[in-house]
């Protein structure tokens, strides 16, 4: 390393870097974004392939015959659901018992920290029903789960019907080596959370549940089924789970392989895959699919009932039946055969799924981007922070106190807010959050009052150094766990961090900095997401959606232990405040 040992040449190198700092940063930023956009380009991505040898081929014979009967069972279920206006527990228990399963129920109750207006629930009480198919000559050490949520209204009845139909068919087969648990969960995610906590006897979210009576050992894989029509045009695969966790890629491969074999149209993010990758529209389609995945993953919420399994190291995915206006229809028998094939393959597993990737993005169901390919995009953005690298303890502490306030106050002060202002609880929580967030902007003035002397030139440089390192570590760690969230945050925070000094034009910079703040990122994301889903909204609707997204984020944290809200409130927001501080340095 003669280059570094020689002081003269070292000085020359440093001079070069300092002189070219700004252009290098710009180039890196552009390169990072370009790299990321390139990930969706098909020649740059890998085709998916099955890594697990035990699931190597789709050579199983699917014979599930009774789709019609399953649909009829679904109707019966719907009738009973309507009659008791909720989960027809007794009927389910009887029906499962008649199919030769060991049936158990679990009661649970949970009072939400504040009313959830989207789903209109506050004090939730429900019952999960599950039946265990005991594998012959197996010692109850391994299990697979097939679940279907019991949703209010007319949704998902067919899913429960098909689940019961499959249970009956599976019961008469002799090849099972793992117990199969058929679960109908009440109140979708809350019920699922209660069941999983009961099964693993943990309590991470303060839910009340009755202990489970029957178990099947360690769960190897799970599928959640959502089906709301007798026939479907395509099956959609949902992978994004809690905190942006993804199941092993082999589960997606398995689904894709069987869709190909049986001839079912399959989608991911509701997007069919196209063959014209070399055309502009084909490429933008892939970008759209990948960006949808990035946005969903970054949100950190479970996008299906499967999302909560991932915390317990259980590979899980949701399979959704979609019925659109397309001509080509698939009936329940075919969906049953698809599931039968997948379960027979999962049944063959000797080890739990571990061969394939856990960190990936999917621009289409047949292609994926592995961690080795997407990390450089993030690396290029993060490298900008490094050249910029503690008398500044005070702003640091105050920023974090503000963050802690943002984390705690909305829930604590909802009652007080409701008393004094004409708002509902949900609005109170969201508006308090926004108020605290905005109040944080007044911070620089208060910080200076606490500081003993005038801020020196040296002072802001050190503060910036600390802030930059902080941001680098924060974004680096986030990107490792949840690439999508890390990338989106880096996209907005990194430019803010790079340009801010006390010497830039104040008003303009302040405006730009606010635009690049986490809250505004979320706002843009909401609009962008709607755009991607081809359902653009007006500004007012978008704003309302934005408020509900905030409340959902807070709810997800308290209900399922999602980490996005605390991450933003306790770490990202204080970090951004540091840059705000630098801008108003005196």
């Amino acid at each position: 390393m003669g280059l570094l040992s020689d002081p003269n040449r070292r000085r020359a190198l440093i001079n070069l870097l300092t002189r070219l700092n700004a252009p290098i940063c710009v180039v890196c930023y552009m390169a990072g974004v370009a790299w990321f956009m390139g990930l969706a380009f098909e020649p740059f991505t890998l085709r998916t392939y099955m890594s697990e040898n035990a699931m190597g081929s789709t050579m199983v014979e699917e014979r599930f015959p009774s789709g019609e009967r399953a649909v009829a069972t679904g109707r019966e279920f719907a009738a009973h659901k309507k009659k008791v206006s909720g989960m027809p527990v007794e009927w389910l228990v009887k029906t499962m018992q008649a199919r030769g399963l060991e049936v158990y129920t679990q009661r649970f109750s949970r009072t939400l920290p504040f009313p959830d207006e989207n789903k209109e629930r506050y004090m939730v009480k429900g019952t999960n029903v599950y039946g265990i198919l005991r594998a012959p000559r197996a010692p109850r050490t391994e299990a697979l789960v097939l679940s279907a949520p019991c949703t209010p209204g007319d949704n998902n009845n067919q899913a429960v019907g098909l689940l019961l139909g499959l249970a009956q068919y599976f019961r008469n087969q002799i090849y099972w080596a793992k117990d199969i648990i058929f679960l109908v969960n009440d109140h979708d995610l809350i019920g699922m959370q209660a069941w999983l906590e009961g099964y693993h006897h943990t309590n991470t979210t303060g839910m009340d549940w009755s202990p489970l009576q029957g178990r099947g050992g360690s769960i190897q894989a799970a599928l959640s089924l959502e089906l709301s029509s007798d026939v479907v045009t395509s099956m959609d695969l949902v992978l994004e789970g809690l905190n942006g966790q993804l199941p092993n890629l082999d589960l997606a491969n398995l689904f894709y392989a069987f869709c190909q074999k049986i001839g079912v149209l399959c989608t991911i993010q509701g997007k069919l895959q196209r063959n014209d990758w070399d055309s502009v529209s084909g490429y933008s389609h892939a970008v759209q699919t990948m960006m949808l995945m990035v946005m969903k993953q970054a949100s950190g919420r479970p996008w299906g009932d499967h999302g909560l399994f991932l915390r317990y190291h259980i590979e899980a995915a949701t399979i959704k039946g979609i019925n659109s206006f397309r001509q080509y229809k698939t009936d329940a028998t075919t969906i049953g055969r698809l599931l039968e094939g997948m379960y027979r393959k999962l049944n063959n597993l000797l080890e739990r799924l571990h061969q394939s990737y856990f960190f990936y993005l999917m621009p289409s169901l047949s292609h994926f981007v592995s961690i080795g390919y997407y990390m450089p995009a993030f690396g290029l953005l993060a490298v900008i922070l490094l050249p910029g690298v503690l008398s500044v303890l005070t702003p640091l502490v105050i920023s974090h106190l503000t963050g802690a306030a943002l984390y705690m106050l909305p829930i604590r002060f909802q009652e007080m807010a409701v008393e004094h202002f004409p708002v509902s609880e949900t609005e109170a929580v969201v508006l308090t959050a926004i108020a605290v967030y905005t109040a944080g902007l007044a911070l620089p003035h208060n910080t200076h009052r606490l500081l003993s002397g005038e801020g020196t030139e040296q002072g802001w440089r050190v503060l910036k150094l600390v802030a930059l390192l902080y941001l680098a570590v924060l974004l680096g760690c986030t990107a490792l766990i949840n690439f999508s969230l890390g990338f989106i945050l880096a996209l907005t925070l990194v430019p803010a961090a790079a340009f801010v000094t006390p010497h830039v034009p104040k008003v303009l910079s302040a405006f730009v900095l606010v635009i690049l703040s986490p809250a505004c990122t979320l706002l843009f994301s909401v609009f962008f997401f709607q755009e991607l889903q081809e359902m653009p909204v007006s500004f007012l609707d978008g704003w309302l959606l934005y408020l509900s997204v905030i409340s959902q984020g807070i709810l997800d944290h308290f209900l399922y232990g999602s980490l996005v809200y605390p991450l933003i409130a306790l770490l990202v927001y204080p970090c951004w405040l540091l840059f705000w501080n630098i801008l108003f340095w005196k």
Partner: protein
Amino acid sequence: KQNAAAQKQAEPAVLQPTPQPKDDFQEELVVRPLHSGDIYASFQFRTLWETDFMRGNKVSHYRLFPKSLGQVISKFSVRELHISFTQGYWRTMQWGQPYLPSPPGAELWVWFQDSVTDVDATWKELTNVLSGIFCASLNFIDSTNTVQPSASFKPLGIGNVTDHRFLRYATLPREIVCTENLTPWKKLLPCGSKAGLAVLLKSEKLFHSSFHSQAVHIRPVCQDWQCKTTSWELRQTLNVVFDLHNSGQGKREWSLFKMFSRTLTEACPLASSSKIYIDITDNPEQFELSPATSLLSQAMVLGDRRTFSVYDLTQQDTFGSVRSLNLLIRWKSTEGDMLRPLLHAERYVAGYGLQTGEIHTLMYNHHPYRSFPVLLLDSVPWYLRLYIHTLTVTSKGKDNKPSYIHYQPSKDRVRPHLLEMLVQLPPNSVTEVTVQFERALLKWTEYTPDPNHGFYVGSSVISSLVPSTVAMDTNSTRERPLFSSFFPCKEESSYFVRVYTEPLLVNLPTPDFSMPYNVICLTCTVVAVGYGSLYNLLTRSFQIEEPSPGLAKRIANVIRKMRGVPPL
């Protein structure tokens, strides 16, 4: 029958004129239609032999007793040997108690004679020999999965040596039982699978079932009431449960042919008794039986008074005019709810993540008003490091202090944890035993093949004297003299039950075994480039190199050097 008896008389007379060999063989099949609609068939084959394997007595002439086992007994000074191979888990909640309980996988426990000096070495040799006899992986039994229970496994035969130094107990929960284990087991029978009840033992049917268990028990028993002479008992048992849905096609109708794809035509000619018992206690409300038999027998089984129809295979008329016996059982009632056996247990691992966890053992006492003590035995491999201070035993929300605890801590790579407790189960309650553990990081060669499958922890064993259900019904409608029913008589008041919980499958932190190569490449690069240059920068002292001095200065320095003065 007469022919066989005559043969039995005549044969030894020809071969060995002097002593009458005092051995005896009995075979028996019990069929119990289960509450759930499934059917339970239990075979027992018993060979008794009045001989002495010990004290240097060379036994060389074998008749009914298998020679391979006789040699094992004498060579390794075995007092008692119990070995079972089980595929599947006994579902107590649907099937009630089994006649002979056994844990999933292989279980072996042996009492040695007190003349054995090095028990561990003998045990090691014995397991290897048995491994060969039964074609099983018993050779994987070593010190890391062997324990010496202090109370749970008492000798079942005569003799009052209870020093548990001579006892060894081991389970292999991952052992898979198949045809290759059945064939050597069948070869131990005097008639093989050629005649008698053993013709029913066809592996394609036995392994098309919900539960399969085969066992061998050897113990010394009394020959007569006064116990003047002892003899060795070899009991071979085979239990199998056929599934209603898989093999019955949903019709509640069972026959010998349907279960075993064979019918019976004769008893084993060497057997002194050969009988089939059908549990008809619930007859006629629930099922009907054909051909009918007039022979009935009553017995106390697992605390309950049961009635059996008996078919004696040594009687020719049992087989009827078609000269073959195909019992038919037609089950009438619908599928029942779950049972509430008086004692029932289950176990699971709680928690998530790969660092810590918690083992929960639940023991249910469903007796409405009697509490009874149970002995719980837990043997946990060393790589789950139990935090014994976190052990809690709770019943009905209250702390339940065990009256006896025997705990032997594990030693890494040497021996497992052993935990034995005597716990009183209150009536109608669930007792929960929890203990936390930490998962050890194994050395990379210690992982089994397919490490992501997980590691097994053997079943807990719960042994207890359970109050019998007969003692429970106070206003019995049965015809009994009043004077006999006031005090519950001792034999009937409680019965011994051993319950095994399910084994556990625990995931340990497992490295990605393809990763070392990547890691080696990456670390080498990092060390070479990053660390090397940084180390270089930190340790080297930097000096500004002076421009080379002019000619005059160099000359001056030479002169100064000669003068002994420091240079300029």
